[in-house]
């Protein structure tokens, strides 16, 4: 498959009064054409910062690329000038933000907000741009698009606003669409509609999507591949089935077992103890070691490298080292592994 974006050894810090916050500490991943890559992790894990650095949306005065590159179309995005970046932003790579209430301009009719990127990036007349915008609104399922072009954001509901934001993001047929928690602010029923819409559109225009969320249900629904982030690093990456049915990293185990499953009875929820690491002074070894009951001595001293589980699946945990003792994952994770051919708990096909 064709690699459309490559993030290599990315390190990024923020300079604050308290000192240097190492928000991203060596992130590597590739994005393939037409796929959806979900990035999951708790707040402060660096998932939003990673995507914002791809878009170069971080304040230049306080943030600094320490190392690494972001390769897109043969160019390193971290080295581009603002002017060059502006030609890419909104055209080749565009973004959908979390809060549809604040990401639209309240004083501008939505028609003008949709035609804005089209006029900016394409040589096209205003009338034609208008037609494109109407088609886009129709594409995202807005009834009576001609009429609604003249309306202002406050005249739309939350779900409709998110549809408009999606229309704007898609205006120039981007190769990469970054969706930063696009459904978190929406109700479940509306969330389901927006997710269906995004999957539909992806098929139609064959764009690649980076989907950031902390809702594992949404991940299971939209993702082809999943990257789990913790403490500024990717700790596990693999296909959606590999992450959900054959997870290897204790943090992924914790995440999966802290959500109640619909059929699990009164069993106590597994709660990951403690709080996320302080990235002003990141732990020397495995960032998750302090919260993990599986931590070994080496976890405190040396950060684990990536161990290969399969061609598509990698996890950064010392537990995968050949000399590491075999440990039992939590019960809820074993239940999941039973469904996965290739895991050590596989019980044959259940269905």
């Amino acid at each position: 498959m064709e690699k459309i974006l490559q993030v290599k050894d990315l390190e990024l810090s923020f300079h604050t009064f308290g000192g240097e916050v190492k928000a991203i500490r060596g992130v590597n991943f590739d994005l393939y054409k037409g796929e959806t890559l979900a990035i999951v992790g708790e707040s402060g894990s660096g998932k939003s910062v990673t995507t914002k650095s791809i878009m170069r949306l971080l304040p230049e005065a306080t943030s600094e690329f320490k190392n690494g590159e972001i390769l897109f179309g043969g160019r390193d995005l971290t080295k581009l000038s603002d002017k060059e970046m502006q030609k890419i932003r909104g055209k080749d790579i565009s973004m959908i933000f979390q809060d549809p209430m604040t990401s639209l301009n309240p004083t501008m009719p939505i028609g003008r907000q949709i035609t804005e990127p089209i006029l900016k990036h394409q040589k096209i007349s205003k009338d034609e741009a208008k037609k494109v915008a109407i088609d886009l609104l129709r594409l995202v399922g807005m009834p009576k698009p001609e009429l609604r072009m003249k309306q202002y954001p406050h005249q739309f509901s939350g779900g409709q606003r998110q549809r408009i934001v999606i229309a704007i993001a898609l205006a120039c047929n981007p190769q990469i669409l970054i969706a930063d928690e696009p459904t978190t602010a929406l109700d479940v029923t509306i969330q389901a509609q927006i997710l269906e819409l995004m999957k539909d559109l992806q098929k139609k225009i064959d764009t690649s999507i980076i989907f950031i969320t902390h809702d594992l249900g949404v991940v299971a629904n939209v993702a082809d591949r999943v990257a789990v982030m913790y403490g500024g690093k990717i700790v596990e990456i693999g296909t959606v089935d590999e992450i959900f049915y054959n997870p290897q990293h204790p943090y992924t185990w914790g995440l999966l077992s802290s959500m109640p499953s619909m059929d699990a009875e009164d069993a106590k929820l597994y709660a990951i103890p403690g709080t996320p690491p302080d990235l002003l002074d990141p732990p020397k070894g495995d960032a998750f070691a302090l919260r993990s009951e599986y931590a070994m001595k080496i976890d405190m001293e040396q950060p684990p490298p990536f161990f290969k589980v399969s061609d598509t699946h990698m996890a950064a945990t010392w537990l995968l080292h050949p000399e590491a003792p075999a440990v039992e994952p939590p019960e809820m994770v074993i239940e999941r592994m039973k469904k996965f051919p290739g895991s050590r708990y596989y019980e044959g096909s259940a269905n």
Partner: protein
Amino acid sequence: MAEKLVEIKNLKQHFNAGKANEVKAVDGISFDIYKGETLGLVGESGCGKSTTGRSIIRLYDATDGQVLYEGESVHGKKNKKDLKKFNRKMQMIFQDPYASLNQRMKVMDIIAEGIDIHGLAKDANDRKKMVYDLLETVGLNKEHANRYPHEFSGGQRQRLGIARALAVDPDFIIADEPISALDVSIQAQVVNLLKELQEEKGLTYLFIAHDLSMVKYISDRIGVMYFGKLVELAPADELYENPMHPYTQSLLSAIPLPDPNYERNRTRKAYDPAVHNYVDGEDVKMREVSPNHFVDCSEKEFAEIQEHLAAKK
């Protein structure tokens, strides 16, 4: 059946009543909350679930209807003494742990506010001890008492909110989306804490949320609200296995679960209120379709549900 702790009878909460912009946030709902149980209340934003909670604890004066706590009306005229007595029994935990704690007060004073109002502490030392105990109960420690709210993370703040609610030793706690603002890994910590406290102290909860999988996990019974009305009320398992009201079915079909195989096969059902096809004057009310399972339906629908249930057996 267990003893009734709270009875809500035809509660109505209309805002801007009589004006053109009248909002019927809660429009005639009735249910009971039993001693020691957790009743979950779900629905989409704007369906009136939070307003219901706030009316029950008298943060709003109800437009119509009654809320009885141990047989005594919550609303209506009360002298200061009665009100105080009542306020001690019922407490609330709020959604936003950032906005619900006074940032200019130290944790000690935030938690002790209720203790002071009700005069529960004998002297300054006793007050301190009570606060320390409460902090420990919710998994924090003594040193935290001299800090300000901004020094805590979201999950810790929600623990402070819980400690504050527990300070006056209530029987009934209304938790309005207590975990929505927290990270997944922290959500589990808070939910476990709420469950432990319930076992220890025999608390009764009204748990308001929109995250259905968490609600199912924590609740004994669940009520589903739609546009100011209760459309279905059933034991948690029953509701998930046999959702009868089309809105409940639509809501359940919309939840994504952390299970890719399930997600690939999930089909979403949309809810259109027109499916009911109610004729004018048709008697639509909560009817008991099977033991403890109530559905808002007309007589005709009731017969259909009965038939459906019989066929299932």
